[in-house]
């Protein structure tokens, strides 16, 4: 055997390629497509999902996401500024908060805050939207804080110095000079954060739901129970994609544009 390096590479690539094609052909032949289609995407059931999947489930998912994001962004901004503060206790608090809430699965945090707190204190969450959105926002804040911090650190030091030299207070300089420039950098990663949040809302239903507070995922699961068919979950998945794909594409486009703009 005296194959050159390039020949060997070409051979290996050809091997992988033909194995992939063979596997696909096998799947195509082995699967009973009619039965699969009937179990995963049955038209009569697809039709039955509407309009409730949009008017109730999608609406609730969007409400949880938006509440979670607004809360997460506000608190995240505060945490990022604390993290960069010259006051040590602020830094410690923010660092601990971020570390703890990123280190615990959202599901566990949801259960602790949604159930644990009422059991421990006797205090009741005023309504299911708040009960679901607040833990979501608290966790999102930890992730968003790190994104915002990176954005603030990307703004050159001289911007703050110039602002202070003109007599602006630290707070005013942050608000009018630093944060607006940081946001230009972090809008794409924040959009991705938003997409993660859309998907994370699917966990909120562990806190229990009523017919009016069903989110997309729970709506799909209930549909599966009602119909003994997986179609409702597939439809729910497609509705999620209809939300997330445009947003991730938007984020990618903004990222490309800001890179092009900097050149």
């Amino acid at each position, binding site marked *: 055997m005296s194959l050159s390096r390039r020949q060997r590479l070409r051979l290996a690539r050809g091997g992988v390629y033909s194995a992939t094609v063979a596997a696909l052909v096998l799947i195509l032949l082995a699967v009973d497509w009619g039965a699969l289609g009937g179990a995963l995407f049955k038209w009569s059931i697809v039709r039955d999902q509407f309009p409730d999947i949009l008017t109730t489930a999608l609406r609730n998912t969007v409400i949880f996401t938006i509440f979670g994001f607004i809360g997460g962004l506000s608190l995240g901004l505060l945490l990022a500024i604390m993290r960069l503060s010259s006051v040590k206790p602020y830094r410690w608090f923010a660092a601990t908060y971020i570390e703890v809430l990123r280190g615990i699965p959202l599901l566990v945090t949801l259960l602790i805050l949604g159930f644990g707190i009422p059991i421990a204190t006797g205090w009741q969450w005023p309504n299911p939207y708040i009960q679901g959105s607040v833990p979501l926002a608290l966790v999102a804040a930890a992730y968003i804080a790190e994104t915002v911090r990176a954005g603030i650190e990307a703004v*050159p030091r*001289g*911007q703050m*110095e*110039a*602002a*202070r*030299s*003109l*007599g*602006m*207070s630290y707070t*005013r300089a942050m608000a*009018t*000079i630093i944060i*607006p*420039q940081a946001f*230009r950098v972090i809008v794409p990663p924040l959009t991705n954060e938003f997409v993660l949040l859309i998907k994370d809302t699917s966990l909120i239903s562990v806190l229990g739901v009523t017919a009016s507070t069903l989110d997309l995922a729970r709506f799909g699961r209930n549909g599966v129970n009602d119909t003994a068919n997986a179609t409702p979950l597939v439809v729910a998945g497609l509705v999620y994609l209809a939300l997330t794909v445009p947003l991730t594409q938007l984020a990618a486009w903004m990222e490309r544009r800001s890179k092009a703009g900097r050149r």
Partner: protein
Amino acid sequence: MTDALVRIEALHKRFGANHVLRGIDLAVARGEVVCIIGPSGSGKSTLLRCVNMLETPSEGKVYVDGVELTDPDCDLDRARTSTGMVFQSFNLFAHMSVMDNITIALRKVLKQDRATAEAKATKLLTRVGLAEKAASYPAQLSGGQQQRVAIARALAMEPKVMLFDEATSALDPELVGDVLRVMRELAEEGMTMLVVTHEMDFARGVADRVVFMDAGVVVEDGHPDQVIGNPREERTRRFLTNVRDRD
């Protein structure tokens, strides 16, 4: 000494173990133009940054227009409005138009209304030769244009003293002239200026006094013709020889 606009007394600055300023005494009279020259690392920029407290001195006192900035009770935000600073890297606000760069502090700090602030900005832009650039963004300007906007931005606050921190060091050689011309005009109008610079011709032609710093101390302080033309100290002479060899 009593009518000194800027007075620096026994100033020390340490960055950890690094003792950058080792007892500086300096006074700048109203209307005086003082150029600070010296090798890099001599502490001249740090000294300038102590005058508006962008760096907090480790010891010593700084007075501007009778206000002690090193007093812990001093309202620094307010005190800084009497000093204007021009940076080596311009530091224009990248997300704002030239007009907004100049008016933002007028509006937010001095609480002027937009029309008043913009009228003033237009006047200053005309003066630095950039009236037609009001709507441009910093990234669309050359370095020399950016620096002239930065000067206009500082002047808008009507500071008592202007601090220039190597204002032309980051510029392409052909753009230096425009910025120096603006600085020269400012000096001729009677502005009090403290200028850290490597431009020996500017120092010699414009300054009332030249201060030579090395290793955190003032080595020589006098008339430009004396300090640059006929330095008393060996260290000054060596520095000036090096600078001339480089040119």
